[in-house]
């Protein structure tokens, strides 16, 4: 589709998608990846050390 400008996809995702089925749940791999990344990002944001806040005492 979008060629000529070198702006076409490096990875072509225009094939039929892969789907995971588990009982009533049916989800595309792409959506699952997004959701897993979301959870991972949340957990990372909770645990990653926030820069520049070492050794600061709270009391005035």
């Amino acid at each position: 589709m979008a060629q000529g400008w070198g702006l076409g996809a490096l990875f072509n995702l225009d094939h039929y998608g892969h789907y995971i089925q588990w009982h009533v749940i049916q989800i595309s791999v792409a959506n699952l990846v997004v959701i897993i990344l979301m959870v991972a990002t949340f957990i990372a944001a909770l645990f990653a050390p926030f820069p520049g806040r070492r050794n600061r005492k709270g009391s005035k």
Partner: protein
Amino acid sequence: MSNAQIERQWTSRLRHRVVEKLPPEKLLPDTQPAYVASWIYVFGVTTMAALGIVILTGTILALDGPQWWHSSSLGHFINSMHLWSVEIFFFAMVVHLWGKFSMAAWRGGRSMTWVTGGVTFLASILAGFTGYVSQTNFDSQWISTQAKDGINATGGGAFFNVLNLGQMLMWHIVLLPLAAVVLTGLHVIMVRVKGVVPPFEETTEVSA
């Protein structure tokens, strides 16, 4: 005009109220309470940044109109950026929502901050949906013919006709972005007025 008269002006009164509620050092504070020390705090700003990119790329798409992104590779690239910034926008918003929930960030008179956030989420979903039906491709044909049933069932389909491209495109590029931006503005102003919510009190040994 006497000073007293000037003070009674609607204009002066409004200015006093605004400045009192949101003085510049509250609007653009240079410090934060020491407890604001977690990566979870950056997701509100990230959501705002993504919203900015969504609007920027959408504006570029609007310059040349709906046929452009099907026929030009530059148009298609901008269309791709629009799609991916939307994915990042929702991604960041959901992490933001989980974060604010975990902190019960509605405490201390901040319930309207939560409510405006929630309404912004809904407006964004509607904006995303109208965008999907405005694609003018197979996906938009399918989504609109499917979605009509749910919306018709509420009675809303008579006025919000998802099969009417002109109507959906207007909602998508005018009404809903406006709503999202205004709501986000209100949301963030509320955060600035109230300041960032303090931690839960851990009522153990030391009570100050």
